[in-house]
């Protein structure tokens, strides 16, 4: 029980303590401030909360692996929008016309493939040119957004497929489809980070890139896989989200990258790479959604949510630096 262990336990469980604090706070505050008669912690409210956190959460899981690897991806919002458009547009493509309801499967596959390709393109550029991921994805954030506009100009792309909506609104065992997908994503990527060579190498590269290279790890391919994975997850997030809403605005997904990074950082992942966990990110995503829902529940408006999340992010960073020596030295994107 040295102090290092205690410090690590504190930082690992901090986000969950914060979630418990939020739950208690909003339950008590809600008794006095809320206009609704239902309690904050009733089951349907919590299930809805999980469902609402799915789109950001699915991308955040991928971002965790990217950041553990020592990179960052700013283009996820644009990939999200492209995948959404492709999903809805391909539902009415001529080549799928004979498929009946199976068109949904085909469309989802096309959208996921597109997302994976765009992510892999980022990874390939980062790998082969050696340009910093921040710059590469800052560029492709603009470039991919340009592609979004090429589909339909400034008009929204709409296509409501009722079977798809039914699937999206289905509740298997009482839990929403979106939550199932989110949970499955967390599980699979958690297994990847814990039990695969790729996962372990991703941590090694993020922790000390030169050492990893000297140990014979091929850095490039691992980065490529991670970027392809986050592209896939951004598309998966779009599939989950647009299956229900059925309409994509060309500006959709803007600032998603910032929300996602906020959730990942709250979950304890270091920008400098080498440390962070999927479970921590899950906590970060839930904490943010709790804050949004809770502040809405006690009657605060969106402006307060932005203000509070921004301040919390800075406070967490400050506490983390005090607890963690490595955090003090980190920086330089």
């Amino acid at each position: 029980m040295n102090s290092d262990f205690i410090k690590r336990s504190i930082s690992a469980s901090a986000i969950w303590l914060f979630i418990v604090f939020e739950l208690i706070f909003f339950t008590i505050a809600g008794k006095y401030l809320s206009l609704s008669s239902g309690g904050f912690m009733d089951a349907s409210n919590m299930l809805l909360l999980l469902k609402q956190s799915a789109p950001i959460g699915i991308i955040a899981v991928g971002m965790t692996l990217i950041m553990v690897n020592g990179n960052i991806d700013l283009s996820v919002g644009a990939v999200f929008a492209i995948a959404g458009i492709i999903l809805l547009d391909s539902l009415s493509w001529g080549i799928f016309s004979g498929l009946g309801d199976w068109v949904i499967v085909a469309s989802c596959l096309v959208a996921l493939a597109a997302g994976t390709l765009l992510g892999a393109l980022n990874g390939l550029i980062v790998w082969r040119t050696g340009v910093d991921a921040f710059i590469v994805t800052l560029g492709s954030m603009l470039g991919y957004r340009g592609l979004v506009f090429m589909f339909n100009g400034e008009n929204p792309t709409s296509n409501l497929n009722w079977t798809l909506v039914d699937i999206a609104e289905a509740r298997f065992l009482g839990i929403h489809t979106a939550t199932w997908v989110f949970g499955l994503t967390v599980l699979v990527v958690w297994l990847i980070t814990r039990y695969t060579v790729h996962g372990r190498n991703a941590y090694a590269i993020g922790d000390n890139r030169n050492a990893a290279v000297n140990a014979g790890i091929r850095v490039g391919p691992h980065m490529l896989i991670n970027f392809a994975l986050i592209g896939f997850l951004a598309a998966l997030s779009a599939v989950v989200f647009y299956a229900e809403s059925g309409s994509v605005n060309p500006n959709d997904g803007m600032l998603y990258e910032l929300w996602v990074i906020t959730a990942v950082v709250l979950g304890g992942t270091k920008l400098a790479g080498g440390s962070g966990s999927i479970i921590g990110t899950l906590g970060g995503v839930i904490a943010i959604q709790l804050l949004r829902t809770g502040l809405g529940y006690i009657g605060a408006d969106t402006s307060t949510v932005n203000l509070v999340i921004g301040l919390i992010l800075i406070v967490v960073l400050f506490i983390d630096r005090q607890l963690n020596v490595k955090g003090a030295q980190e920086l330089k994107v």
Partner: protein
Amino acid sequence: MANTARQKILTVVGNHGILIAFVMFMLVFALASPKFLSFENLQSVVRSSAILGVMALGVTFVVISGNLDLSVGSMMSFSTIVVLDLHDKLGPTLAIPTMYLMTLGLGGTIGFLVGYLKLNSLIVTLGMLSAIHGLTLTYSGGKNMDIDDKSGTWFSFFGQGEILGLPVPIILFIALAAFLGILLAKTPFGRKVYAVGGNATAASFSGIPRARTVFNCYLISAFCVATAGLLQASRSMGSQNTVGQGLELEVLAAVILGGASLLGGSGTILKTVIGVLILGFIQNGLLLIGWPFYIQYVITWIIIILAVWLDISVKRGKFWATV
């Protein structure tokens, strides 16, 4: 021999790549559209890039000092909303300095967190992006701001006025660029900014106050943002709460295009101005030859990556990264 000649060409192309690209762009568009090089058109491009440009000047300081500023977009919304609101309450003479003070206060807060508390600038300014956006919404109550009596005030001078036939935004942009350019290139403070960004540890050991230098860079950035907010408010005389949303990344794109390294220690004001103008001319040129505005995003993407790639290739002497 051949190898050194090739090395030399690479170095020249690398050092002046952005200028070469700029000239090539101008040539292509000038050939494609005769209107492109007319004085009116050049003037309109510079005028419409002025707001982005003024913000990019300040961010250049922050980037050279080795940090990032993602909060400039929402800070610009803040100063625009504040100055429009105060205009009707206090009158323009008091509103403008008050707005500058409030914006500098925000910049000082970031400077304190990043400089003195040594927190990661990316996350701090990400948090401030969100927090300032919330502050703006709280301040305005979510409503759009408008000046009541639009014709009875001299406030429109900054965004719409002219001096000797030149639009005021252009004059302000040039004046600020000249002043900050000299500050960065010719003064001890400018040297310190490069030193801190180039190697913070070495700078500290040489007795350069890292914290104060970084703090001052964020103050300069906030000053530029306030000026951009003033231009924006004065040009449109009314504004939404989200007027600056997303600008932070466009500004950063212009600065990177100008050749400043995100690792700090390199970049100049002149190069940033060229980066801003390239973005402006791409946008304008594409519109003149009749292409939709979103093509510029794709082209900006390609140019940014090529520019930085070229820069890196020259430094390592090879086009492709090894690992």
